[in-house]
């Protein structure tokens, strides 16, 4: 099986488990799967998103007022967007 994308719930005590959605294997910045881009909340620059090995989740480059910094890519309701290998 390929890579599976899922939403990693921030409040597992309230929202236990994960929701599998779709899968591809693109991980380079700017070439993220359409499904990931579709999940991401619109305030984020998805063209800068990339998958980080440290947590298996997508991060994007946020142009903050003091520094550019990587932040977790999130859904509209604030959940990080991650991947997992089966």
């Amino acid at each position, binding site marked *: 099986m390929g890579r599976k994308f899922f939403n990693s719930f921030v409040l597992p005590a309230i929202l236990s488990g994960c929701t599998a959605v779709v899968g591809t294997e693109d991980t380079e910045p700017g070439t993220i799967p359409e499904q990931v881009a579709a999940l991401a909340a619109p305030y984020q620059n998805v063209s800068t998103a990339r998958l980080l090995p440290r947590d298996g989740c997508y991060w994007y480059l946020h142009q*903050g007022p*003091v*520094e550019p910094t990587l932040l977790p890519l999130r859904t509209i309701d604030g959940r990080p967007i991650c991947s997992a290998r089966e």
Partner: protein
Amino acid sequence: MIALGKKGLTRRHFIVTASALFSPPVAGPLLADTWPSEAQKSAWDAEVTPPFFDLETSNPWGLDPRFLPQRVVARAGLVPGNIHVDAIARYLYHIEDGGTAMRYGVAIARGNLYEPGTYTIRRKVRWPHWTPTRSMIERDPELYADVEDGMEPGPENPLGSRALYLYVGERDTYLRIHGSPEPRSIGGRASSGCVRMVNAHMIALYPLVETGVTAYLHPPEDYVSAQS
């Protein structure tokens, strides 16, 4: 949702619950009127500071590592001494000489209670009092009625170890940058208007911030969405 009846609600239960949900601004006259001694303040400092504390690595709170304090390269042109709160990232930056800034993880206010803007820090307090504002009591009477006269300073006080008071001109906005007894809220949106930090981090930041400096509270993600 939390449903708390007033009957059977102990003061300690209230404190834990309220501080978990709300990190509030401070209201006017304080009826909580004890003032801790320097020895008491030092004892509380020790109580909220982990053993062998290292600002950039100690993490008994289980914070995501990105919320631990670290020095970063700052954009050119920022004024040393000023504070910037990046509400999207949940970072507070204290701009330093030499083009760097110290970055700390924070929690910001729930929903539209966060108030982006430009403020002046006109007052600093170690181990401050706290009193809920009238609007907070009206919004959540079951939580605040028992402490409407204020809370004494201490490790369970919602303002925590230190508070920086944000003004617009000469007007106190009741917004604060402060320590919190709820470090696990860092990274989220928890308070009623203030910017929360880990108590031990706030103790480190506090002496570096001078009154008169500017604090910029930058817009959060939903503000950006609403404007786009």
